[in-house]
């Protein structure tokens, strides 16, 4: 149970998890939702049996969809453009959305 800590301060296993965490705290700071409301939503997803960070992302997407701030289809379409941009970016360079093909 006492698995050794990973990089990213032991709290994150990948940079996207850190980014997701920062995004959520920033939204709470901005008053989009209170932290107690957030932990309730996160706890509910965790209770469904999802992995911690998967649960976190699902909970946040649901909170944003409920408020009409980011709808699932919109997120999916834009996520595909990000994947596309990553493919079009040479290794070692920052991935920019502008690099995605305009077809996406």
């Amino acid at each position, binding site marked *: *149970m*006492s*698995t050794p*800590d990973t990089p*990213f*301060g*032991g*709290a*994150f*296993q*990948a*940079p*996207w998890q*850190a*980014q*997701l*965490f*920062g*995004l959520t*705290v*920033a*939204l*709470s*700071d*901005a008053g*989009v939702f*209170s*932290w*107690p409301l*957030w*932990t*309730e939503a*996160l*706890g509910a997803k*965790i209770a469904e049996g999802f992995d*911690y*960070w*998967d649960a976190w*992302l699902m909970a*946040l*997407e649901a909170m*944003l969809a409920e408020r009409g*701030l*980011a709808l699932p289809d*919109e*997120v*999916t*379409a*834009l*996520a*595909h*453009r*990000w*994947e596309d941009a*990553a*493919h079009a*970016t*040479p*290794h070692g360079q920052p*991935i920019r959305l502008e690099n995605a093909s305009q077809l996406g």
Partner: protein
Amino acid sequence: MPHDHHDNHLDPMDARVRALETILTTKGLIDPAAVDAIVETYAERVGPQNGAAVVARAWTDPEFADWLTRDATAAVASMGFTGRQGEHMRAVFNTPGLHHVIVCTLCSCYPWSLLGLPPVWYKSPPYRSRVVIEPRAVLAEFGLVLPEETQIRVWDSTAELRYLVVPMRPEGTEGWSAEALAELVTRESMIGTGIARAPEGVA
């Protein structure tokens, strides 16, 4: 196209997080620089050294220890440690007869301002569920075997109320400065899955 180049492949989760950030930034709901600052703060700057300073001060300053017992939120705020989300803090003190452990059974509530972000195991389903049911066995898995007569109390953290365990001061540290004592205070000792380190040369 030749395939000897190195395609960047984005993890689908990574892509979704980037998509969210793009949408929210476009709508003016977040500032990417603020997001980066939050990550940097909690992943790199805020850590268990804050809690260790609080514990060491409680060990050396009885008035502070008393304040920490009565109003931990104010006592730790006086040292510059305040919760970002207005949460309250409570300090629970270990004694020879009573050992405290913290958990968040719901998700991962944790005293960020004092300990940084929780370690992976703190968020894991086995820890969250089992430490409540069989704390003694779970502590043993962390290498902490407590005397039979020591009671164990488990505190369930919430978004509004988060706990800090004040471990017992190690033997053989009489006359030590707070700075020196802080070096003995581990993260695990402030969660309750460990105890403070013994000074070198003391069994």
